[in-house]
């Protein structure tokens, strides 16, 4: 028994092999986009408050709606709305990518890199496009 205790205390001091975690791997686009998908999902979760405020303000009357319009038209409001637009489109394209993967397609190295790149380039392009259309619908920036 004493022998066993001696060997375990000696073993505790020795460096034990540990299982590798995220920080041991070289960052890759696919793993970055994986965590960004989760982050945009969580952002949209709290962004639902913005949607709720918008609809409740519209249902409450002109004054409440004016307050919402004042906020969303302010610099911070526009940054938040731009972020919401991007998060929504990025999560949407990332979701489509996951649906493609669910059919067991697109797992070759070149394919998954291409899909991942398309998600980030596509989401930024679409966000800018949606905002250009939005400003055109309002008759130019104000």
């Amino acid at each position, binding site marked *: 028994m004493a022998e066993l205790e001696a060997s375990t205390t000696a073993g505790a001091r020795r460096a034990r092999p540990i299982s590798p975690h995220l920080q041991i791997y070289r960052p890759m686009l696919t793993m970055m986009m994986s965590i960004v998908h*989760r982050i945009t*999902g*969580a952002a*949209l*979760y709290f962004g*639902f*408050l913005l*949607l*709720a405020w918008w*609809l*409740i303000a*519209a*249902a409450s*009357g*002109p004054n409440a*709606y*004016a307050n919402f319009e004042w906020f969303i038209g302010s610099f911070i409001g526009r940054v938040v709305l731009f972020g919401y*637009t991007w998060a*929504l*489109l990025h999560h*949407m394209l990332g*979701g*489509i990518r*996951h*649906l493609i993967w*669910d059919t067991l397609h697109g797992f070759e190295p070149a394919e998954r890199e291409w899909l991942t790149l398309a998600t980030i380039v596509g989401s930024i392009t679409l966000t800018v496009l*949606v905002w250009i*259309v*939005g400003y055109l*619908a*309002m*008759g130019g920036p*104000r």
Partner: protein
Amino acid sequence: MIGQHPNEMRTPMRRVRGLGPAHTGTGHFWHQRVTSAAGVLLSIALIVIAIALLGRSHAAAVQILASPLVAILMLLFIVNSAYHMWIGMQEIILDYVHEDKAKLFSLLANTFFCFAVAFASAFAILKLSFGV
């Protein structure tokens, strides 16, 4: 144990039920896929509706939001998104929160939040639709 893999840890009853340790099987996994497919279409609808409302007066905005097609699409977006984000946040919580009390509290808060924002938003749309 005929036909069972030698490394199989589950009892035959567990295997027959096929529900796994969460006792709910793959239900949430599948629901998340269904709501994501619907979410693609409904998110596009939301963006179109939001652009149509830009720069309009309160009266004009209310008229658009209260029209049946827009109201129905908004309600579908609200219900679909609330369920999708409830499953998603639950998955995030189960991944990162391991302490029992904190886990229970976060899961409760997740359910309360999703129900609250969904019902508040849906109520606003219904009030606009029926109130005109």
